[in-house]
């Protein structure tokens, strides 16, 4: 029997640091809610707005798969592996922190707001060699389609990570309806509405609302507004 949990946008943790306005779907930093610790291996979903030129100085990470999706603006990234890059809206960045990596992330533009989603997944193996990748996505390919942007397979579409997880982005015409087939038995899907309104398994969701669905193999989706955008995170429900 399919199960689900709703996470309305206004139930997320919120921290406004002035230059950083952050919404946390799961417990993060000073936001602690024992009912909102993770959805399967999905541990962090932060929706951050960062003022022009501002950002996070060098700080470390380990043993986490970190995915960053800029929704508006661009991020300037530097890390201890020697990578220095700008990731723009329409691109995706992935970092396997593994045994340890340090990086900085700043709004690359002085006069433009940066809005990004930062997502952390528990890895399926600890202490891997740190790695970095970024990819430009074909934004048109997600029109009325769940475009795969991440998988466990380096040869598959999108970036890859050390976890049996698949992410997809879609932008839909009003009334468009489809089923999403979960990629692996035992996985659940956490669907996050980036913009617009959608109906997932009969539940109406608005901007930044989310639903987590598990114990099922498909998800029914319908766009309830023009240009509705959704991120699907298809993740193992069991922690490794």
């Amino acid at each position, binding site marked *: 029997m399919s199960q689900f949990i709703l996470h309305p946008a206004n139930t997320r943790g919120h*921290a406004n*640091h002035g230059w*950083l306005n952050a919404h946390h779907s799961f*417990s*993060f*930093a*000073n936001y*602690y809610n*024992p009912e909102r*610790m993770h959805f399967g291996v999905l*541990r*962090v979903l932060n929706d951050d707005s960062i003022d022009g030129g501002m950002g*996070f*100085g*060098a*700080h*470390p*990470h*380990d*043993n*986490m798969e970190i995915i960053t999706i800029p929704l508006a603006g661009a991020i300037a990234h530097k890390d201890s592996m020697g990578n220095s890059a700008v990731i723009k809206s329409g691109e995706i960045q992935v970092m396997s*922190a*593994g*045994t*340890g990596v*340090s990086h900085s992330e700043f709004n690359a533009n002085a006069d433009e707001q940066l809005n990004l989603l930062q997502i*952390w997944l*528990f890895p399926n193996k*600890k*202490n891997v060699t740190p790695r970095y990748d970024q990819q430009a996505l074909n934004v048109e390919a997600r029109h009325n389609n769940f475009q795969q942007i991440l998988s466990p397979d380096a040869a598959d579409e999108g970036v890859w990570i050390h976890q049996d997880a698949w992410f997809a982005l879609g932008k839909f015409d009003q009334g468009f309806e489809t089923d999403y087939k979960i990629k692996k038995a035992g996985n659940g899907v956490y669907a996050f509405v980036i913009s617009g309104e959608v109906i997932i398994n009969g539940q109406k969701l608005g901007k930044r609302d989310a639903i987590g669905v598990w114990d099922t193999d498909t998800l029914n989706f319908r766009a309830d507004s023009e240009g509705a955008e959704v991120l699907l995170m298809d993740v193992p429900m069991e922690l490794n």
Partner: protein
Amino acid sequence: MDFPVSPYDFNLKNMMPLTILYVGRDADITVVMNRLLNAREEWTGICVCSDEEAISVCKEQHLDLVLLGNGINHGDEQKLRTILSALRPGLKIVQHYGGGSGLLYGEIMSALREEG
């Protein structure tokens, strides 16, 4: 390496005093963890890179919680858990993920809730 103060550093109060041992192999991350754990009045953080140091600390003083950080291989982790648990039966030992402040408070709170 100089790590600036993060906006995610802690500023919470009204918590009982805790002594927390962090064990991780990366020296830079250990420095950050030491800063984070000692930034709070209620917490005393002791951060080490080797299992020998961890065992020595555990022998010498009371600990409320042990956080296992990065780079500890499976065999070493099992040995360390066995030795620390033998030294202090009931000592809570949990994995610290992420290497920084993002998950730290939640991990500690969850460990203490489970203990309680």
